[in-house]
């Protein structure tokens, strides 16, 4: 075995290895056995569970593996839990959807597993190359998933848009990375931080910061790099949209934090300002654009843009508390967003597309359970106590105030006041509007029930008793290096 490698390295990437193996098995099953969706779903979920367990093997660990290409720390673990959980929920809610749309389950689950794999590398990579590969693994899988409804022109269009703009932003991102490499002579985040510490940041680095910021801003759909999001979210299959808006966002935030907090603390002042502007733009435009949307998926797309804006507050703050609050918010966001999308998926029946706002008309009378769950998710997204969303906001805005970004907090509060309008608009449709053309009744199959159950549980429990989440997040944020420099510079 060559120098620097050891069997331990393979032990450390056990979760990723399991995921890869599972993905390959699913792919082979898809072509070698007669179609059997439940089997495929079972295998995929089993893979995820195994991966989760193996991640929890490394709890409390804080080491770098494979010659400093990967970090195995609580930060990575937290994000791995988030992406794995969101992948699981997505698969659960996909099962009925695939049946209705008549899609090939094998490739679908395979691609979701691949995307998850990429996200996990984004969460744990501490080297530009690793991060880049993880990003692309995720992105390419999503390009295909977005266009998975082959006969549907909207889906095609979504795929093309996501693909072209994604590749474009990848070019921008890579150019920034190459500049960083040129300026520091290394791609390891720690190396970059060391190389940059001390000297006053050169213009090249600033350029690189902007380019990388733009590339990442595209992935997290931050204004003005957000414009792909609404179209892609609307056109892609609904479960994919859900996964895109939660998993991909979370992983991209992980990568963003790794790069900026760990590698570029020397220019913290610069990127902090950059993200301040991005955050304000993103939350404001996201919320205001959502006000007049008539398509539910599109509305949720804009709302997720706005939430990216809130999350950016954590990056701006840049302190350990800021990051911790971000993680909390992501953990909460996972449940409420996926829950809302699960309802939208359930609205899709053999005879109804059900992603228009008016399709919710009088839902309360047709399916009170669905209506109440949607109400809960909407309240949570709007940040009304005692739901989890409120917790996330309190913690996040508190961090902002704490670090002296009072105005940011005020803007954020004003924004969430605005956002309530369109969230409650959904409620109004469900309660106070004429019945939409009913179509076949909503049925919640076992898989969907489990998914919704988990989402509700998370939204309620973390609203009433968020302690657990907070502790985990703080532990995770603690293992992210480079805060000292960040704080020093402020």
């Amino acid at each position, binding site marked *: *075995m*060559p120098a620097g*490698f050891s069997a331990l390295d393979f032990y450390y990437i056990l979760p990723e290895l399991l995921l890869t193996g599972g993905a*390959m098995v699913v*792919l*082979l099953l*898809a*072509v*070698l056995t007669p179609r059997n969706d439940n089997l495929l779903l079972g295998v995929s979920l089993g893979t995820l569970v195994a991966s989760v367990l193996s991640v929890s093997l490394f709890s409390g660990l804080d080491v770098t593996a494979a010659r400093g290409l990967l970090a195995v720390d609580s930060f990575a673990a937290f994000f791995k839990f988030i992406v794995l959980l969101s992948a699981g929920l997505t698969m659960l809610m996909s099962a009925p959807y695939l049946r209705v749309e008549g899609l090939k389950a094998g490739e679908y689950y395979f691609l979701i597993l691949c995307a998850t794999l990429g996200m996990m590398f984004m969460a744990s990579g501490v080297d530009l190359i690793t991060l880049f590969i993880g990003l692309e693994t995720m992105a390419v899988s999503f390009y295909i998933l977005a266009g998975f409804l082959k006969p549907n022109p909207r889906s095609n269009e979504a795929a093309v848009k996501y693909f072209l703009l994604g590749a474009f932003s990848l070019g921008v991102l890579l150019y920034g990375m190459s500049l960083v490499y040129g300026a520091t002579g290394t791609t390891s985040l720690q190396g970059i931080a060391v190389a940059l510490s001390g000297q006053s940041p050169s213009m090249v680095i600033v350029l690189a910061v902007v380019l990388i910021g733009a590339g990442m801003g595209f992935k997290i759909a931050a204004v003005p790099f957000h414009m792909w999001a609404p179209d892609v979210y609307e056109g892609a299959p609904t479960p994919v949209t859900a996964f895109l808006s939660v998993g991909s966002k979370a992983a991209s935030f992980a990568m963003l934090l790794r790069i900026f907090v760990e590698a570029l603390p020397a220019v913290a002042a610069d990127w902090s300002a950059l993200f301040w502007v991005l955050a304000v733009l993103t939350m404001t435009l996201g919320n205001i654009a959502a006000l007049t949307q008539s398509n539910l998926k599109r509305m949720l797309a804009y709302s997720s843009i706005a939430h990216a804006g809130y999350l950016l507050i954590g990056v701006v703050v840049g302190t350990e508390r800021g990051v911790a609050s971000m993680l909390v918010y992501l953990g909460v966001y996972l449940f409420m967003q996926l829950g809302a999308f699960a309802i939208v998926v359930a609205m899709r029946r053999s005879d109804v597309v059900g992603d228009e706002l008016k399709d919710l008309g009088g839902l309360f009378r047709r399916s009170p359970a669905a209506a109440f769950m949607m109400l809960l998710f909407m309240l949570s997204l709007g940040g009304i106590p005692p739901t989890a969303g409120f917790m996330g906001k309190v913690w996040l805005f508190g961090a902002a105030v704490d670090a002296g970004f009072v105005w940011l907090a005020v803007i954020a509060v004003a924004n969430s006041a605005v956002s309530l309008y369109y969230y409650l608009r959904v409620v109004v449709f469900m309660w106070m509007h004429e019945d939409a053309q009913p179509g076949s009744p909503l049925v919640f199959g076992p898989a969907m029930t489990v998914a919704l159950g988990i989402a509700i549980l998370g939204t309620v429990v973390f609203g009433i008793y968020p302690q657990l989440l907070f502790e985990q997040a703080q532990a995770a944020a603690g293992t992210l290096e480079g805060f000292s420099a960040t704080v020093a510079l402020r």
Partner: protein
Amino acid sequence: MLDAYIPVLLFVLVAIGFAIFTLMVSSLVQSSRYNRVKLEPYECGIEPVTDARDRYSVRYYLIAMLFVIFDVETVFMFPWAVIMDELALFGLIEMLVFLFILVLGYVYAWRKGALEWA
């Protein structure tokens, strides 16, 4: 160092100059009377029946995609080949795993019928 290129530069200039010169001369001497036959694309041979731009079968693209992928994967083999002896057995196993994954993809493509024509 650049002066080494001066002859090349001269050669290029002469070539271009000659081309332009001949064109001008011929345009001076040529007669400019046209008729239908002259204007046809082929003055002899079979009459063209359809548009020359024809749509290819989608299979070409499929094959092209597969080729691109499997072709580019070799790029990972060159570095390995260079220091093969250094990496020794470990490297060999790694490469075999890598190839195995590729083969899986190949099997998938095969089973999907991406390789048959029509």
